[in-house]
């Protein structure tokens, strides 16, 4: 049984990471055939799949916004995604709230003015969860949107920080999230440094929060690098297939 005291010993966290270390992160773009855009994020033991459909017509029509596209963000956890027993299918209160705050991220990052009266669906399916699924989901959603060719101001990046005792650490896993003292998931737009998602629980002083911000801004660069790598690899894969396509 993991206990709180195990979380931080001799400068190292339970899985051996230092405070600023991220878990291994792998992002793959264009993993689905039917969706306009898609991405798989494998972050530590998290696996989150994002898929984008649209821009498409809004139904019922009266919900359409004549000035911009509406974002339909959907964050959902598969019943087999957690380590405990089978969860219920379908959205619960937590996933509805996360869908809402995720929607706000994409409402900012997507150039919604370019597609009035349409809807863009961003689905974030958590296939396996181990702490930090909302930031993983939104990070995946960003790549899926770019993969779909939907215009973006920048790729939003998600990352969490948290307090374990007196240590502020980045990228909390499940144990740190559950047993630690505070959890701050954040999503930023790297180009401008704007905070697009910010939630928090626990008790933090202003100094704690300021430090968490700085750490997140620094760590976010590494996440963005992975997003870019995913999109670049997807393009190179396509180009390689094209070159091989001579035989077709």
């Amino acid at each position, binding site marked *: 049984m993991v206990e709180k005291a195990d979380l931080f010993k001799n400068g190292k966290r339970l899985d051996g990471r230092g405070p600023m270390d991220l878990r291994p992160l792998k992002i793959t773009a264009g993993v689905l055939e039917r969706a306009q855009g898609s991405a798989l994020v494998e972050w530590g033991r998290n696996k989150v799949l994002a898929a984008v459909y649209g821009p498409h017509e809004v139904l019922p029509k009266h919900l359409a916004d004549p000035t911009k596209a509406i974002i339909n963000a959907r964050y959902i956890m598969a019943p087999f995604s957690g380590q405990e027993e089978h969860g219920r299918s379908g959205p619960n*209160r*937590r996933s*509805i*709230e996360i*869908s*809402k*705050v995720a929607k*706000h991220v994409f*409402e*900012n990052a997507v150039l919604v003015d370019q597609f009035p009266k349409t809807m863009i669906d961003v689905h974030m399916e958590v296939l396996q969860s181990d702490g930090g699924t909302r930031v993983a989901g939104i990070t995946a959603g960003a790549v899926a949107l770019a993969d779909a060719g939907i215009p973006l101001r920048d790729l939003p990046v998600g990352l969490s920080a948290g307090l374990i005792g007196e240590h502020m650490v980045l990228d909390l896993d499940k144990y740190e999230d559950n047993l630690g003292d*505070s959890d*701050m998931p954040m999503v930023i*737009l790297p180009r*401008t*440094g*704007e*905070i*697009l*998602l*910010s*939630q*928090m*629980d*626990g*008790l*933090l*002083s*202003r100094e704690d*929060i*300021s430090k968490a*911000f700085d750490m997140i*801004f620094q760590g976010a660069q590494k996440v963005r690098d992975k997003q870019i790598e995913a999109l670049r690899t997807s393009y190179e894969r396509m180009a390689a297939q094209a070159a091989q396509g001579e035989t077709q």
Partner: protein
Amino acid sequence: MILEQIKQGFIRELADKGQREDGRGLLDYRAIKVTKGFAPNAEGSALAEIGRSKVLCGIKFDVMTPFADRPTEGVVMVNAEFSPVAHPEFRAGPPDEKSIELARVVDRGIRSAKVVNVDNMLVTEGKVQGIFIDLYILDHDGNLIDTAALAAMAALKDAKVPKFEEGKIVRGTSSGSLPLKDIVVSTSFEKIGKTIMVDATDAEEIASSGRLSLGTANDGKVCSSQKSGSAGFSKDEYLQMIDWAHEKRRDLLAKI
């Protein structure tokens, strides 16, 4: 509703000049009034009013099965009902994303600061105390989160723990006030254009492009944070709002 939509442009113009429709300063709350014990059948209750917004909070105790991994811990559940009486756009039916968000944000503040000490709430073998905090939105003129958080905190202060006999609750009795370890209030900021203001009215919320709700606890701590809406906030704006939230805390505490 239509009226509020039309007003958007006007409100934005005022905001650009640092002004507001009702003449308030950017950091001024509207009149705040709290009435404890408003719904005496509940074990604790309070009606909170900020300007024209009204939220009634009722607290009921019960005996419940605890969570499997925390067998002696009491269970606190916060729910919000956006009653159709409060606004022409509220529909009867299951909670929508805004009402779920409000309930969870108020819950997080109370839980993070451990306002209610839920350790050792065993009532009998396999059963613990359950505390239901129900937020009834009765009138919506903006800033429901702060109003609801105020109602919840005041209701918690008003609450009397009933007696439990042989594993059952005995309604109408009291074994004393609910012990509280901290006091949490919420301050919400709206961003209109580049201007940030506190305690927005419904019309100001419609004109707003982003919101930050901060829960504060004792000792200068922030216990919850929820950013909403599409506008982004810079780190400096965020830290500034933390400072303002602590300032406003004094005014809000005085009302409970």
